């Protein structure tokens, strides 16, 4: 795999960042893809994310698995624990009474859904993980960072595009 260089431009104005992203989309630099662009920001900017290629979120799928797995397993465990006392006298009452068992089944439905959501979110967000070497603390304060990975020979062209939209700072790591 060929070596890639990274450059990060910081913007104070979301409109300027949007302008830079639009120009990157249409720049026609050979070998450059929008998949190699990452936005870093202190808040969610859906209007900027829309300018990148579609990045699907699969969390709900795992949530669905959780809400199917939790109650099914829970009900089976509860019912099998109750059924293990099958020889005890129940005085005409059912050995496995489904209506009251629904209460715990419902709670397990929620618990399993929540846990699967959290686990899948951490996996999708790649957390815990290490911050990139170009991480700048100002993106957690008030700046929007556009990080671009590209071939080292294309970096000057990328920097030029990023520089046309009034960044507060451009810094690069060309050694990766």
């Amino acid at each position: 795999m060929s070596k890639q260089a990274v450059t990060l431009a910081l913007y104070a104005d979301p409109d300027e960042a949007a302008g830079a992203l639009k120009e990157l989309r249409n720049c026609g630099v050979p070998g450059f893809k929008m998949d190699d662009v990452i936005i870093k920001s202190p808040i969610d900017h859906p209007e900027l994310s829309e300018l990148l290629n579609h990045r699907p979120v699969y969390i709900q799928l795992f949530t669905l698995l959780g809400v199917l797995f939790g109650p099914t397993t829970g009900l089976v465990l509860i019912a099998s624990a109750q059924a293990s006392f099958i020889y005890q006298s129940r005085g005409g009452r059912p050995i496995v009474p489904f209506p009251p068992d629904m209460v715990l089944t419902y709670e397990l439905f929620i618990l399993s859904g929540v846990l699967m959501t959290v686990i899948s979110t951490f996996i999708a967000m790649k957390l815990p993980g290490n911050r990139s070497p170009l991480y700048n603390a100002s993106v957690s304060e008030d700046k929007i960072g556009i990080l671009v990975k590209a071939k080292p020979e294309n970096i000057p062209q990328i920097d030029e595009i990023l520089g046309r939209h009034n960044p507060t700072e451009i810094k690069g790591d060309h050694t990766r």
Partner: protein
Amino acid sequence: MSHSVHSHPQLDVQIERKFVPKAKDLGPDVSWAQINKDVLRSLEKPRPAFWIIFFSALALFSFGVYCEVYQYQNGMGVADLNNPQVWGLYIATFIFWIGMGHSGTLLSALLHIIHADWRKPIYRYSEAMTTFTLLTAALFVMVHLGRVWQFYYVVAYPNERWVWPNFTSPLVWDATAIGTYLTSSLLFLYMGMIPDLAICRDNARGARRALYKFLSLGWQGTDRQWGNFKVAYMTMACFLMPLAVSVHSIVSTDFAVSQNPGWHVTSFPPYFVLGALYSGCSGIITLFIVLRYVFRFEAYMTQPILNKLIKMTFAIAMVWTYLDLIEYATTWYGSDEVAKADLVYRATGDYALQFWGMIFCAMVMPFTLLIRYVRHNYTVLLIISLILNLGMWLERFQIITPTFAKSHYPWTWTSHWWPSWVQWGMVAGSFGWFTMLFMLYCKIFPSVSMYEVKEMVHEQNLEGKLAQPVSEHAHEAGLPEGGQA
């Protein structure tokens, strides 16, 4: 052909009126850097009142611990718990704390789902309140057991002889529901805090930096992280809504499945849920005023936000009042003579003072929230919010104690039963425990969500741009005065 954009004077007025700005929840001059600075400052230098509150809470908690040790060494007799008064203040206070815990996460989740932005500066501490009230409530289950080392009997877990607990018992439902709610609320709180923990990490030094670095998990605020985060947060909010409703409904079944009179009204579950929301909202108002002063959050915990919170509390109080009156009416006009006698005893018997105290504090006092002076005077509002919660505590007391005092069998009747100082000490200790944990949390973690307040400011600015009157748009577009093209 020239064309007039809005040349008619009446049309001018209509268009201008359409863009009359709403009262903004935050001031106009809040910058993102300032938000970071203000919230991070709260972690370092609170007002001296913080330490006064913290050490007062520690003293109360220490007294509670002393009472628990005394009860542990001398047996449950010192708590004056005996047949028929087997629950006393422990279970009344347990329900009070569980109820207090409901508003934080439930309201945070509900307001998040309906995109009510005013929740953003106040939801974090509300969720923390939920977590610590649940931890406080859990203490009472163990204290009430007497044999605290056997608390795991209520958890769905087999004992040493592989006998499983009774899955049809509401006590097992309770433990499972509260465990689920605590786990989910804690994860909801933590998940929502990760971007802010990253801000803390970027600005802290020493041991604090190590703590925030560990807890922020390497968050960088990338578009992929935000995209997943938003979906996950909304999904969890959707789970927490029905969960919170189910938990307090289950708490109501602790009563409803028993044989005691007065606990079988059909509206019991929603009555409990609304009671929980009511006391929780009052608690949020109390903490709003305290945190606003102690941590200097005047720029974020503003009067418009407090007004909305008060309106919501009043609405919930009215629904709760309606359900409470429905309970009395159903019992009065029903055919259960014992339940009717129980109701009459509550209102006229040994505990009438508590009953009418509850009516005054929880049903009459909310009307003071309609007075503008009360809403704007924080000292008065603080006192009223505490009175509302006193009313809700009395409500839990008068559900339990009078019912046990005059139940089905006359030979179990007791009169003038009053909890011993050990029980009162434990109740006081629980308030100390909650306050201590909550204040510690606010000193270590950001109690105002920085990134969400930034979102709020961002949206307010966008709204401000859109809400510029048409004549300004026309001016910006290079049109002459009056909109003539």
